[in-house]
C-alpha cells in the first residue's frame, strides 16, 4: 500500500512536469518540441545494411530461393487440383461439387447437420456466384501455408518447451512478431522472394507461425504431471513420451493453435493482395478502389463465409471430445460416412463429366446480387446521405482535425513525461522506464509526427469503441440468452479478416479519415463488447447474492460490485482493442491517411526493408507499451480483488 502511495506521488510530480512543458511550450527550445536532428538514428540504414549482408554476403538468398521453390511447386500442385492451373499433376480442376460435398461431409462428421449446411453451403454459394477461381486461388495458398506453419510452430513449440533458455529467447521475439503489423512482414519477403503467389504464401507462413508456437507450448505445459508419470512408469522413452503421451494429451490446445493458424493465414492471404497475391483479396481490393460496392459486397460475403466455415470446422475438430463407437462387425456399418462421402463424390464427378456447369460455373451463368445491392445501397445512401455528410463534416472539423493538430502540437518531451507519469502510476519505475524507452525509440526513429497521427487515430477510435462497446456489453450481460447471442456475434465477427470491415464504411463514408476511423471503431469495439460481457457474466454469484441481501439497487450492484469485479477481464478486452485498432489503422492506410501506415505502403512499393521494419517496429512498440501497461494494471487489480 505504501509503495502504491509513493508511486502516486511520484507520478503526480512527473505529470506536473508534463503539464509544465505544455504550458511553457512557446518558451521551450526547438530541441524539446520536435525530436532534434542529432537524436534521430539511421535505424533504417542499419537494418538495410544487415539485410544486404544477409542477402548477398551470407548467401541467404539461395536458401530462401530454395525454400520458395519448394513452396512454389506445392502451390502449383494445389493450383492444378483446385482450379486447373496447367501444371503437374494435370488432374484438375476438381469439380466444385466434389469440394462442396467434401466440406459438407466434414461438417457433418465433426459437428452435425448445421455445420454441414454451413460448410457445404459456403462452397455452393462460391460456385454459384462465379467466384470459384478466386476463392480457390486463395484457398490453394492456405492449403500449402497452413501445414508449413503448423509443422514449424509445433517444432519450435516443442523446442521452447524442452529448453527454458530457448523459450526465454523466443518469448520477446514472439511478442514483437505478434504486434508487428501485416505490412511489416511483407517488405522483407518482397526483397527476398519478389511479388506474386509464392511471396504471398511465404509471408502467410511466417505471419501465422507465432500463435502455433504459443499454443503448442501452452498445451505441453498443461499436460497433467500424472499422465507423464504414468507414461514414464509404462517404460516410455523420451521420444515415445513426447509423441504418444504429451502431444496427444495436448491435442486440444494444439488444434486450437491450428485453428488460429488457419484464421491468420486467411487474414494474411487476403492482405497479401498488396504484394500481388491473386484471389479474393485482390479482387476485393480492385473493386473497393473502383468503388464497386455491390460486387465488393459479394466478395465480402464470400470471404466472411469462408472465414466462418474454416473457423467452425477447425474449432469443431479441436473441441471434439472422443466418444466410443459401436463396434460393428460390418465394414460398411463402421465406415458409413466414408462410403456416403465416396458415393457423393462419385456422383459429383459424374455430373461434372456430363454437364459443364457442374465443373465450373461460368461468369456469365453465375448468379449475382450486385445489381440489387447497388440499387438498394443507392437508395439507402441517398436516404442517409444528409446524416453521413453531416457526421463526416462534424467529425472532421470538430473532432478529428483539432485532435490531430493537438497531438502534433504537443512537445515530444511532454508526451514522454506524460507516458512516464502513467507508467509510474501503474507500475513504478520499471513501467515508467519501459514506456519512455518504447516511445523514446519512436522519437529516435525520425517518424515522430507520423507516429503521433497513428496514436491520435488509435486513441479516438478506441475511445469511441469503448463509448459504444461498454454500454452494449453491459446491456448484453443483463440476461444469459442475450449474452450468449452477443458473444456468438462477437466471436463470428472476430473471425472476419480485418479487410472486410472496410467495405461497409467505404460504402457509407467514402474514402477519407472518417471511413478509417469508423472501420477501426467497429473492429475495436468487438473485443470490448466481448470481454465486458464475459467479465460481467463471470462475477461470482455469491457476491451478487450478498450485495442483493445488503439491499443494493441494480445500479449500485453494477457500479460497486459487478464492474469492479469484471474490470480485469474488461482490461484484456481493452488491450485487444488497442492491438486491433493499431493493425486496422495501418491496413486502412491505403484509403489515404497520413500516418505510419501510409509510409509503410510507400516502403512496400519501393521495397525499402529498413524503412518498413522501422515503421513496423514503431507500431509494435506502441502495442507492446499498451500491452505492458494494461497487463500491469490488471495484475494490480486482480491482486487487490484477490482473484
Amino acid at each position: 500500500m505504501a509503495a502504491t502511495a509513493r508511486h502516486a506521488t511520484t507520478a503526480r510530480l512527473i505529470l506536473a512536469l508534463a503539464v509544465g512543458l505544455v504550458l511553457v511550450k512557446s518558451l521551450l527550445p526547438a530541441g524539446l518540441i520536435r525530436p532534434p536532428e542529432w537524436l534521430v538514428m539511421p535505424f533504417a540504414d542499419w537494418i538495410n545494411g544487415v539485410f544486404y549482408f544477409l542477402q548477398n554476403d551470407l548467401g541467404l538468398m539461395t536458401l530462401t530461393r530454395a525454400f520458395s521453390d519448394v513452396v512454389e511447386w506445392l502451390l502449383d500442385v494445389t493450383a492444378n487440383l483446385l482450379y486447373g492451373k496447367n501444371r503437374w499433376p494435370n488432374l484438375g480442376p476438381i469439380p466444385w461439387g466434389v469440394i462442396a460435398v467434401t466440406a459438407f461431409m466434414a461438417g457433418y462428421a465433426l459437428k452435425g447437420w448445421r455445420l454441414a449446411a454451413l460448410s457445404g453451403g459456403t462452397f455452393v454459394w462460391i460456385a454459384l456466384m462465379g467466384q470459384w477461381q478466386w476463392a480457390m486461388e486463395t484457398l490453394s495458398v492456405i492449403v500449402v501455408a497452413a501445414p508449413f506453419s503448423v509443422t514449424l510452430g509445433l517444432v519450435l513449440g516443442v523446442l521452447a518447451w524442452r529448453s527454458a533458455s530457448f523459450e526465454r529467447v523466443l518469448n520477446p521475439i514472439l511478442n514483437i512478431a505478434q504486434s508487428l503489423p501485416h505490412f511489416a512482414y511483407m517488405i522483407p519477403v518482397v526483397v527476398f522472394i519478389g511479388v506474386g503467389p509464392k511471396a504471398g504464401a511465404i509471408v502467410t507462413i511466417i505471419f501465422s507461425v507465432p500463435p502455433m508456437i504459443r499454443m503448442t507450448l501452452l498445451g505441453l505445459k498443461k499436460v497433467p504431471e500424472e499422465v507423464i508419470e504414468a507414461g514414464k512408469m509404462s517404460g516410455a522413452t523420451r521420444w515415445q513420451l513426447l509423441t504418444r503421451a504429451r502431444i496427444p494429451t495436448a491435442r486440444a490446445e494444439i488444434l486450437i493453435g491450428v485453428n488460429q493458424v488457419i484464421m491468420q493465414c486467411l487474414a494474411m492471404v487476403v492482405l497479401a493482395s498488396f504484394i500481388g497475391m491473386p484471389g479474393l483479396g485482390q479482387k476485393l481490393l480492385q473493386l473497393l478502389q473502383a468503388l464497386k460496392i455491390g460486387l465488393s459486397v459479394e466478395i465480402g460475403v464470400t470471404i466472411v463465409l469462408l472465414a466462418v466455415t474454416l473457423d467452425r470446422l477447425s474449432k469443431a475438430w479441436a473441441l471434439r471430445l472422443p466418444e466410443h463407437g459401436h463396434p460393428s462387425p460390418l465394414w460398411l456399418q463402421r465406415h458409413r460416412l466414408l462410403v456416403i462421402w465416396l458415393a457423393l463424390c462419385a456422383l459429383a464427378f459424374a455430373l461434372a463429366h456430363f454437364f459443364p456447369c457442374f465443373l465450373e460455373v461460368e461468369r456469365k451463368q453465375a448468379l449475382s446480387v450486385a445489381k440489387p445491392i447497388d440499387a438498394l445501397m443507392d437508395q439507402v445512401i441517398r436516404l442517409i446521405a444528409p446524416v453521413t455528410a453531416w457526421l463526416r463534416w462534424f467529425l472532421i472539423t470538430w473532432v478529428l482535425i483539432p485532435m490531430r493538430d493537438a497531438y502534433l502540437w504537443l512537445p515530444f518531451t511532454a508526451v514522454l513525461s506524460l507516458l512516464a507519469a502513467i507508467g509510474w502510476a501503474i507500475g513504478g519505475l520499471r513501467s515508467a522506464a519501459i514506456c519512455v524507452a518504447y516511445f523514446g525509440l519512436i522519437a529516435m526513429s525520425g517518424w515522430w509526427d507520423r507516429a503521433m497521427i497513428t496514436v491520435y487515430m488509435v486513441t479516438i477510435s478506441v475511445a469511441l469503441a469503448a463509448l459504444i462497446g461498454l454500454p452494449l456489453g453491459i446491456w448484453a450481460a443483463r440476461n444469459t440468452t442475450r449474452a450468449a447471442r452477443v458473444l456468438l456475434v462477437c466471436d463470428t465477427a472476430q473471425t472476419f479478416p480485418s479487410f472486410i470491415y472496410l467495405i461497409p464504411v467505404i460504402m457509407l463514408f467514402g474514402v477519407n479519415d472518417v471511413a478509417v476511423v469508423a472501420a477501426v471503431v467497429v473492429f475495436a469495439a468487438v473485443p470490448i463488447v466481448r470481454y465486458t460481457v464475459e467479465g460481467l457474466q463471470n462475477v461470482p454469484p455469491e457476491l451478487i447474492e450478498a450485495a442483493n441481501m445488503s439491499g443494493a439497487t441494480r445500479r449500485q450492484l453494477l457500479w460497486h460490485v459487478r464492474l469492479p469485479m469484471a474490470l480485469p477481464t474488461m482490461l484484456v478486452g481493452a488491450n485487444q482493442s488497442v492491438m486491433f485498432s493499431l493493425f486496422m489503422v495501418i491496413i486502412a492506410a491505403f484509403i489515404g491517411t497520413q500516418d505510419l501506415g501510409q509510409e509503410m505502403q510507400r516502403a512496400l512499393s519501393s521495397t525499402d526493408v529498413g524503412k518498413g521494419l522501422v515503421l513496423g517496429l514503431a507500431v509494435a512498440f506502441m502495442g507492446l507499451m499498451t500491452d505492458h501497461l494494461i497487463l500491469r494494471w490488471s495484475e494490480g487489480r486482480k491482486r487487490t480483488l484477490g482473484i
Partner: protein
Amino acid sequence: MPVGPIPCLKWGSSVTESVITCRNVSKVFGPNPARHLADLRANPALSQSGYVHAVRDVNLDVQRGEMLVVMGLSGSGKSTLVRCLSRLVEITGGTVTIEGQDIATLSEPALIDLRRRKMGMVFQSFGLLPNRTVLDNVAFPLEMRGQDRATRYARARDMLDLVGLSGRETYFPRELSGGQQQRVGIARSLAVEPDIWFLDEPFSALDPLIRREMQDEFLRLKAMMNKTIIFITHDFDEALRLADRIAIMKDGRIEQCDTPDQIVLHPATDYVAKFTAEIDRARVVHIGSLVQPLTAPVTGDPVAANRTIRELARQLVSDPRSHIPVAGPDGRVIGAVLRQTALDVLLGDGH
C-alpha cells in the same frame, strides 16, 4: 513391554528377502538441492526459503511379497518417497536399491527397462491418456515395449476382465466413472506383470461407497498374485484393512514402520500415538501379537494367532483360564496370552 516385535509379517511365513532397500534417502526440492542438503547436514536447524525437504533420511526395507502401506498427513512426503523408489524424482541423498541394484546409477535405457519389466504404478487422479480408448490405455505399457498389436490387445483384454471392465474396451476415459477409471489405471499397471506395485492414494479421489468396493476388489486382486506392494493412503482405516506393515510419515521422516498391531499397541512417538488414538484397537490387534512365551503348561484348546481381539471378544470374556494358549497357522501352540492383557485391549484401557 510384554512382547518384542514380531519379525514375520504374515503369521508363520518367514521369507525375508528385501526387494527394496532405502538407506538415508533424502529428497530436497529447490534450485540447488545438493548444496542445500550439505548445508543442512552442517546445520540441521537451517531453514531456507525456496527449498522443501520432502523426504528426510528414510531407511526402509520392503520384503518380497509384502504389502507396505505408507501413510501420513497431506504434504508429509508420501508421494515423494514413492517417486524416489521408482526414480520418478531424482534422489538428493542416500541410496535406493531394488533387487540389489542401486537405481541412482542406472542409465536411462536401464531404468526404462526396469520399469518395463518390474514396476507398475497406480495414480491418485488416474493419469490416463485422455485420447486413447480404455483398451489402448491398458495396452500402453506393452506398446512401449514394442509388442505387436494382437498380443498386447489380448493381454489388455485379460487385464480388463480381471478388473471387471470387459465390454468397455472402446470407451474413452472421460466416459467412465471415477471408480471405473481407476480400474483402468489398475489394469494398466498390471499389464506388464510387475513384481513391484506402487499405488499412490489410488482410492482417495473416489467417494466412500466406491472406495470400499475398490478396496475389496484390491484385496481380491492382491490375493491372486504375489507382488511386493507399496500403497499410499492418508486414511488410517484403509491402511489397517490392507497393510502387512504400515510406515507413518511426518514432515518427510518415517516416524514408525511396523505391523498394525505394533503401531496401535506400542506407538513409537507421541505423534503416532495421537494418530492412533481414535482407533478401536480391538479390531486391529491380533491375539498373536500379545503372545508371551510359555512359562507354565497350558490347558484347553488354543486360539488361532491371526484372529483379532474383537473377533475373540465373546470367548475372552467367558474363558475361565488366566493364560490362553495361542496356535500358529500350523496348529502348534506358539505361546499364551494373558487373558487380562487381552481384555485390557478389548475394553480400551491399559495404555
